[in-house]
Structure formats: structure tokens, C-alpha cells
């Protein structure tokens, strides 16, 4: 059994310490936000926040987590009733095609905004560069991050 703090709640899961966080979040805890993409840390679809940092959950075994690590997934970032500004901005900019990369884009972008509230376009592109979108929505994603940085307008 492993104990985790996920989206502000303590949970315990029956998984080996070597189990990758993405499987625990998706299959044990039935969270849909983090997506299993390339499985190699190259696409960013599985991104979650661990202690406010954007982390690839497909590269993170449970054993690599600090004992009281705070894990936040897309579900914990915001809700339809209380959306994170970047979630609202993704809707306003319609910055989605298939939506499979969207989790990673929002989690990476939210971590960027937390550290750098007014990023330049170059900073956004650089910080998001390891998050891949095959549909070609990158320009809209940049606009969504810019919109959130402006306070949603």
C-alpha cells in the first residue's frame, strides 16, 4: 500500500513502489486528466503538478515521490464551477482539436503562469516546447496562455 496526497485528499493505493504515477492516477484513482501518451517523457500528455512543479507522471514511479508530495491533476486544478484561469482561457480560445494533449498543455501552462505571471510569447513557446500537439493547435495554446496571463480578457 502506498499513501498519496492527490488533489488535496489523502488516498492509499495497492500498488508496488515501482509503479508509475500515471497508472495509479488513471487506473487506481480513476482520474482522467493525466493521459498516457508516449510513455517516454517526450510528449507531455501525462503532466501533473507535484509540489507545484510540472512533472511527467509517466516517468515518475511512486518511489520517487517525497513522502508528503502534493499531487495535483487537471481535475484538481479547477472545476467547471471554479475553473483555473487557463482552463477558462482554453475554452474561450477554443484551443483544442482532439483534446488528448490538452491536459499537458494546461498543466504545463499553469505551472508557467504560477512562476511567471506575465510570460512573453517566446517564454511560452520555450516552456511548452516539450508538450506536443499533433493536431497543430500550438498557436491557439499560446493565445490561451496569453489570455490567462491577461486575466482572461
Amino acid at each position, binding site marked *: 500500500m502506498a499513501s498519496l496526497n*492527490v*488533489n488535496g*485528499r489523502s*488516498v492509499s493505493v495497492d*500498488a508496488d513502489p515501482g*509503479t508509475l504515477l500515471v*497508472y495509479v492516477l*488513471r*487506473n*487506481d*484513482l*480513476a*482520474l*482522467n*486528466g493525466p*493521459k*498516457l*501518451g*508516449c*510513455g*517516454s517523457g*517526450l*510528449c507531455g*500528455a501525462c503532466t501533473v503538478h507535484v509540489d507545484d512543479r510540472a512533472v511527467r507522471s509517466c516517468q515518475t514511479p511512486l518511489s520517487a515521490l517525497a513522502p508528503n508530495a502534493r499531487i495535483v*491533476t*487537471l*481535475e484538481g486544478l479547477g*472545476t*467547471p464551477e471554479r*475553473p483555473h484561469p487557463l*482552463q477558462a482561457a*482554453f*475554452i474561450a480560445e*477554443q484551443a*483544442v*482539436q*482532439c*483534446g*488528448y*494533449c*490538452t*491536459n499537458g498543455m*494546461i498543466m504545463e501552462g499553469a505551472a508557467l503562469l504560477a512562476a511567471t505571471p506575465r510570460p512573453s510569447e517566446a517564454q*511560452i*513557446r*520555450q516552456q511548452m*516546447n*516539450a*508538450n*506536443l*500537439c*499533433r*493536431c*497543430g*493547435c*500550438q*498557436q*491557439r*495554446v*499560446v493565445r490561451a496562455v496569453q489570455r490567462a496571463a491577461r486575466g482572461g480578457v
Partner: protein
Amino acid sequence: MTTRPETTVSRRAFAVGAVSAAAGLTIGFRWASAQAPQGGPAVPPMIRANPQLDAWVRIAPDGRVTVMTGRVEIGQGMLTVMRQVAAEELDVAPDRLFLVSGDTALTPNEGTTAGSLAVKLGSTALGLACADARATLVGVAAAAWNVQAGQIKVEDGQMIGPAGQRMSYGDAAGSISLSRPVDVTARRKPASQQRIIGTSYPRVDIPAKVFGQQVFIHDLRPDGMLFGAIARPPAYAARLAAADLAAVKAMPGVVEVVRDGSFLGVVARREEQAQAAAIALARSAKWDAGAPLFGGKGIFDHMLTAADAETSVLHTAKGDAPAAAATRQAEYRRHFQAHASIGASCALAEWKDGRLTVWSHTQGPFPLRADLAKALKVPREAIRVIHAQGAGCYGHNGADDVALDAALLARAVPGRPVRVHWAHEEEMAWEPWGSAMITRLTAGVSATAGLTAWTHDVWSFPHSTRPGSGSGCDLRSAWYLADPVAPSKAAEIPLPTGGAARNAVPIYAVPNQAVTLHFLPTMPIRTSALRTLGGYFNAVSSEMFIDELAAMSGRDPLAFRLANIRDQRLEAVLRRAVEMSGWTPRVVVRRPIEPEMVGTGIGLSRYKNLESYVAVVAEVSVDTKSGAVRVLRLWSATDVGRAINPDGVINQVDGGMAQAASWTLQEAGRWDAGIMKAVDYASYPIQDFSATPLMSSVLIDRPEAPSLGAGEGSQAPAGAAIANAIYAATGRRVTEVPFTPERVLAALAT
């Protein structure tokens, strides 16, 4: 936190029950007494295939309106478009419609959602059916109130008479039956009366995707679900000699190990356990290696010398032309390219009492069902395929194949749903690829820059080997079973749409034309539909060639095109795109090499010669030391006729351009003797933020013109514009896609 008690599967089951109950009908309803009317107006193809009105729309006594589409969401906003169209014609608020999509038990059979046809064919049929339903319901109120139908307004399913009488659709539904053929004379609203069609209605699926709600097939978790994984051969032609199933069955969590011929897989309690067991099984198994791919030859050598090539002249035109003042020929090449979805293919399957239910992100639930029946050797009526969204597929990827994998594994654990989610590397190695291609073009140009003759030869493997397309079974694992079912014989899609020869017919006015296909039906590396099929590379080739002809004639690329265009809509998008870009006329010439060379180029296409018109101007910078090409800007103008959702069209145009920039500059398959080796984002990199250009796109709105397919219109002109911008910058032609730094440097050295 625990697993949510209510899974999507059970919710869907509830929804299914609700629909059936609302209609008071059983599965198979749409085939009863379905006869298309004889004579009269043209019957839309999807209505001909699904003539019954209640196959498309049903009204329950409580007023609930259910619309059904055989089209599926593949990340392009099609379910939003269908909702807009149905809401418009029915006068029901879009968010109040209950929309069912892609379910072999419930929806019309519309084949495959592909080829930019969902709007053109699918929405046309659904719109007509909804217009018929509205007229029928209004007729009930008109008779009851003894007024003309035209005197009745409808607001969100409430009919309102001239004296303020009110009747809901639900009330009216009780006195009519929609179990009859669609009246194809029903009149749809003219564009001037449309209030929802033509607006950028927000995508209905985006909020759920932004908040991490259950949307994707990968998120389905029915109670008792197990995980499956496949132990893959080391090469496509390899066959299994021996495997130690018992050793793998003893691994942690493993529930079953399945062998059927050379198909080898495992079922386990946890996803990571299934994957570990499948890897161990594949490694410990003994495989007989097959013959080397392409006989060990280079791909383009193989294509030009293949003994089984089928050569046919697909198109000719003959006319009077002035003598050619100059002629030119060129050859271009394109490497294998992949769909490379961010999410690998996934399926969920469950056998119960000899019946199979499969949840799949297939583009064609009905064709998939037909091929599953062949592979599993059960009647198709014993199988139900239900669509659930996957990651963007961009054509025929592993979506269908993994459905058979899940069904084969689930058969070993009846009553237990089994989910199989391929690894990304597995997808890249085992999905069908977009074909390598060779094009050879010749043309003559008159003294006044008029095209006199044009030939286009193309060498290609098949571009459509989808399930349901022939007598065989086009699901990969079927070929590896102890009792295998061979694939269908691959065939070219006839022109005008074409497959390998798609967009090989010139868009310019040329008196003498010939298109010849050298079709290679045997696929050492399996190929199928990658977005646009052959259209991208044929149109890129034509547009590269046009710029070379312009240079040969001493003309500016824009002026040369305008001199040879007769289609006003084509001309309009071209003029608009160059205007946006601030085009400066100049003749392309060889320039002395400088460290950085910047140029702009044009790409122009009409997808399939039938669908959207798109013109793109690209500005690129070439680093002549490294050979690296950077796309700085892309400007595009698009004409899709009536744009049902303008922002949705722009999203597709921009996305298509970004994807095409990636194909054009960096994507190529690599393989060893037996199998693809470009299988991850390191060995097969795709566009990232740094490689995504700034894009500006506009629509030329034509509200009264029929809607044209928009999902695949921008790739070819974007690729061509990039190619021509490199040409304009340097005066040298790079002839092989992708334009890697090595190939750019080689061209600069000429």
C-alpha cells in the same frame, strides 16, 4: 477517493435504453419497410443508405429530441457541427438535443468518417431529415389550429400559432410516426434564415476535455475490467515458432496468456503488469524471421522496379494549344510518413453469451464490425461497435486493429471487459503508414506563358486499405491467426477523388493532360490513409512544378498562376492570400549563397479537385550553414462554400498547415530488414512549439454555396508554399520530402 461507481459503460447502457424506450423501437428498426422514393429530387447518398426518418431523428412524448449520426468525433468538431445543423433545422436549442453518434445498434450506417466528407454528406442528410421532421410536426399544429404551416413559429421545440396557440413537439409527436422514409422534397432553411449554422458555436466537447472529465476511450473503466497487451513479432513477416506461455502466466497479475497462431497476447489485472508480461513473452518467444523488406533495396529503387506495378492512364484531356516555347520535366519524392497520434490506439471489448461489444475510436463502426466478424468468424449481428473518442488519428491508424486485439484477448475471459491501449512505439511500428511516393511531371509552356500540355505520373503504394473495403479482412492481427483471414486486395480509389492519384489532375487550365498511376499493391510496409491520401504530395509536386515553369518562363509565380487559372473561386483565394502576405512580384533565380536566405512562396490547391479551395503563402528562412529551414509565417485564404462553423474551419486550416509543415520539413520513416524503426518522438519527431509558424487565416464566406469538406484542404498548399519559399529564397530546388538539413545542403551545393 475511489473508482467512480458509475462508469461510462453503464451510463452509455442507460442512455441506450433511454433512446430505445423513447422511440418504442428495437434495434434494426431502420431496415423495416425502408424504400427510397423513385424519381423526384436527387436523394442524398446517406439518405439513400439510411432512408428511414427515425434513423436520423426521434421525438419522445416528453419533448426530448434525439438525433443520430453515423459520423464520429475524431477531434475536428464534427459532433458540434451535427448539433448545429440539427438544431437549426428543428428549431431546438442545440444544448437540448440528445445526440447519438457511431453505434452499430443505434445510428445510421454512414461508413467511415473520413475524406472531409462528414459535413458534405453527413450534415446534408441529417439536415434534410431534421427539416422533414420539423415540417411534419408543424403540420400537426397547423391542422389542429386550422392555420397555414407558414404562420407557425417554432422556438426551442415549442410551436406557436398566429393567435398565440402553443403546442410542444412532444405533444405533436404522439399523433404522427417518423417510422417512414425521409421526404427528400423537404426544404431546408435558406442561408438568410439560418441562426446557428454559420456561427462559431463553441465546440461542445471542449469543456469536458479541459476539466478532465470522462471523454476518451482510454478513460472507460467498467467494473471488473482487465488489461490486455500484445506480444509483437520482431518483424512484420516473422511468424511464431515457439513460446513458453506457462512462464508468462506465472508473472504477477497475469490472468490469461492467449496464443492463436502467431497472435500472442496477455490479459492481466493491472495495465503495467500486462505490458511487462507482453514484453517478456515477445522476448522469450522464438520467431521465424521473414524475408527482408523491399528485398533489401532502397525504397525508391524498389518502387520504380517493382514487378507487380500496375500502370494505368487514369485521366486524359486533349485540346488545341499553341506550340510550346519551352518544356520541362521534374521528379519529386516523398518518404513514408506516420499518423503519430499523441494517444496510441485503444479499444475495450467484452464477450457475453457469445455476443461481442467493442468500444472503439474507429472512424467507421459499421465497417469495423464487418471485418471483426470475418476475423472472429461470427455473424456480424453478434457484434456491436460503439464509438468512443480517441486521440486525433489523421487517417487510418491502429484504431481498428486494436479493436480486434481487444476482442481476441477478451474472448479468453468471457464476461470480463478487456481494455487494450497500445504503446506509442507499438502504434508507430504496427499502424499503417502514409505511402512513400514518386512523382514525375512534364509540361510545355507557350511564348505567352500559357500551359500547353501537362503530364503527371505517380508511383505509390495504396492509400486506402481500411476495414470494410473488400472481400478480405483489413485488421492486422487477422493475418497472424492460426486460421488467418487475408487482407483484401488493395485497389486505387477512382478519380475524381482518387487515392494515390488524388489531386494529380491539374487545377490549371491546360489543353492537353495525362495522369498515369503506377500502383504498387504489395505492401512490405503496410500503407493506408494518412490525411489527404496522395493529395498532399501530388498537389505539392504540381505546385513545385508550377514555380519551376514560372521561373523557366521568366514570370513571377503569382502572375504565372493567374495566367493559367480559369476557376474564379481558385483565383479569389489566391488573390486574397497574396494580398494578406504583401506579396512582392519577382522571378525566382539562383542567388549567391548568403548565411541566411529568406523567401516567400505560394501553394494553391482544391482538395480532391472537388472540395475546399485553399491558397497559402509561406515565408521561410534558410540557414545555409546548417541547412535548417524555419517557417516564419503562413498566410492562408480558404473557401469552403457555406462554413457551418467558421472558427472550426479556421482551427482545421491552421492545424492542417502546422501538421503539413512538420511533414514537409522533418518526418520520414526508417526501417531495418524487418520493421519500422522510427517509432518514438525521438526517432520520428513532430512539430513542436518552436517549429510551429505564426499563422494568419481567413475565410471567404459564400453563404449560398454548398458546404465543402474542410478538414484536409490546407496541408497540400502549406507544404507547397514552404517548398516554393525555399526555392524562392535560394533559387535551388529540394526535391525530396522531408526537406531535411542534409537535403537542403545538398541542393545548395548544386
